[in-house]
């Protein structure tokens, strides 16, 4: 690594080593491009360090402890005790293993790694400020650049993440004790995943959401399955209330909320987790010097090759306008940008982007809902299969939810799917693939699915859309 202000050159400079950036860097290097990846904090970005991975690790622990403690029906009698600091250490071990892996994979593929913060000097150079004191800085000149600087958590007035009782998702994932009472501000997917986790770990959880349901953006019958289960777990949900502030009390804190008509409510807590969204990181690296401009929310607009308005500078991941802020989208965009720079005939032309929510039960969605399909001018054929009628679901003792498939009635082409239930995050893969392939309902329905599996419910939903389901009545 270069120390001091020396200028070095690289074909491709990638800024940020999250799932957008490190994947782009590896793929570019695989294509023979001289690639430099600069990261100011930790390999793997938000996703591996403070997001997807640690949250899913905690969910595993919470699920296991909670399920084992609630399986008398199955003849299993246990009273699990969770040592939260041990669970956290195990989670950190998983994170370290993966981030170490990312670093090794970058090196093995020949990516040059640079630690530091990049700022644009001009259209073809960045200055890197190294972390430690007296580390100096260096200038890197590039032919191409990929901006993959990701996003940061949004703060709301009255809640300063610097205050000890106020948690960001990152703080929640670092907790080494379970708060007795937790107020969660925001019923989106991150809020609901963490609410469920802490409720299962023994916290008294209250969710405060401004809108009138959890999981905005999901259909109400999908959200309902998760909401019901959350209620059963004792999570107290309040809708139409915005959090306005908090204050210390003798015993813990008091979180105050306000409805639209100005009605105030108060909730006692030990911690308050604010999870109201994330915003792109494009304001700390002088993008103007490179001739770039972000929109008013901070996003960069790109073409179908992920090029910004400055043709040799690309952007991928959470900083990109229009595409959802998800790790797998970041990675796909990184691959498209890297391959385009390598001269491959690629485009970000995915027909549908799957998404998962790791609540209880899970949600997996892809493509169009029935309403979307109607809006797009299709005459939709819709099929549904409840997990209650699935042999596999019953044998796992998780039979809430359903698989729904949306297709074009005339052609049979699969347009979308909504799954809520066990392993929904995995089951959605087959349907995302079906949409990409231009598959029809008949293709899905006539493919043999292993018995007994949850994936059979995907097949039956397709059969149901054709009026031919075996294990559920056809409407």
């Amino acid at each position, binding site marked *: 690594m270069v120390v001091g202000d020396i200028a070095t050159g690289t074909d491709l400079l990638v800024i940020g080593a999250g799932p957008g950036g490190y994947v782009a860097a590896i793929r570019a290097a695989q294509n023979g491009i001289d690639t430099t990846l600069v990261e100011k904090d930790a390999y793997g970005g938000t996703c591996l360090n403070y997001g997807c991975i640690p949250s899913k690790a905690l969910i595993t622990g919470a699920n296991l402890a909670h399920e084992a403690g609630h399986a008398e029906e199955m003849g299993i009698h246990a009273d699990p005790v969770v040592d939260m600091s041990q669970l956290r250490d195990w989670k950190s071990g998983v994170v370290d293993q993966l981030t170490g892996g990312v670093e090794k994979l970058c090196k093995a593929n020949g990516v040059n790694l640079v630690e530091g913060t990049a700022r644009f000097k001009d259209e073809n150079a960045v200055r890197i400020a190294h972390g430690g004191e007296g580390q100096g800085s260096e200038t890197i000149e590039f032919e191409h650049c990929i901006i993959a600087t990701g996003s940061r958590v949004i703060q709301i007035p009255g809640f300063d993440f610097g205050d000890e009782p106020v948690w960001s998702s990152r703080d929640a994932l670092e907790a080494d004790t379970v708060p007795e009472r937790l107020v969660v501000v925001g019923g989106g997917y991150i809020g609901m995943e963490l609410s469920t986790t802490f409720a299962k770990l023994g916290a008294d959880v209250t969710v405060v959401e401004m809108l009138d349901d959890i999981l905005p953006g999901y259909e109400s019958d999908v959200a309902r399955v998760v909401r019901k289960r959350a209620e059963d777990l004792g999570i107290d949900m309040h809708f139409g209330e915005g959090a306005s502030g908090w204050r210390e009390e003798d015993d813990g804190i008091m979180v105050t909320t306000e409805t639209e008509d100005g009605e105030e409510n108060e909730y006692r807590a030990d911690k308050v987790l604010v999870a109201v969204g994330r915003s792109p990181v494009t304001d700390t690296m002088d993008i103007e010097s490179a001739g770039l401009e972000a929109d008013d929310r901070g996003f960069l607009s790109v073409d179908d090759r992920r090029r910004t308005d400055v043709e040799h500078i690309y952007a991928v991941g959470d900083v990109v306008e229009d595409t959802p802020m998800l790790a797998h989208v970041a990675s796909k965009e990184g691959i498209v940008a890297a391959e385009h720079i390598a001269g491959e005939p690629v485009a970000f032309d995915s027909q549908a982007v799957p998404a998962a929510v790791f609540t209880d039960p899970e949600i997996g969605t892809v493509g169009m809902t029935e309403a979307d399909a109607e809006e797009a001018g299709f005459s939709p054929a819709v099929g549904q299969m409840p997990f209650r009628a699935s042999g596999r679901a019953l044998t796992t003792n998780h039979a809430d939810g359903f698989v729904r498939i949306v297709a074009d009635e005339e052609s*049979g082409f699969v347009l979308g799917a909504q799954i809520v239930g066990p392993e929904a995050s995995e089951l959605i893969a087959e349907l995302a693939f079906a949409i990409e392939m231009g598959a029809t309902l008949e293709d899905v329905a006539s493919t043999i699915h292993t018995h007994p599996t949850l994936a059979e419910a995907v097949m039956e939903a397709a059969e149901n859309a054709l009026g031919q389901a075996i294990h559920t009545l056809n409407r």
Partner: protein
Amino acid sequence: ADDDAGSGGRVFAPPSVRRLARELGVSLDSVDGSGPSGRVTEGDVRAAAEDDGDDDDPSGPRTVQSNGKSATAKRDEGASGASASAESADREQTLAAPATRALAKE
């Protein structure tokens, strides 16, 4: 596939076929798919490329809307509308999708 209202301007073709179309400069909206319901196959694209020497610029912005929302791709309207008739899918019968095989049997 015809640009009829029903398909919302969307072309149904596997990823590998879409990439091939870009490589060969074929605009997918101008290809008549020979698969079930007009799905475009690799053979359709190759035939279209042979029929039409024109190098359509296949680039142009496509929008993939966010999760759960329409993922319909708006294709470059500027592309030439040369329609290629490709009758043969080059997948052998044994490697044809279930709906294709059902069609063949009928």
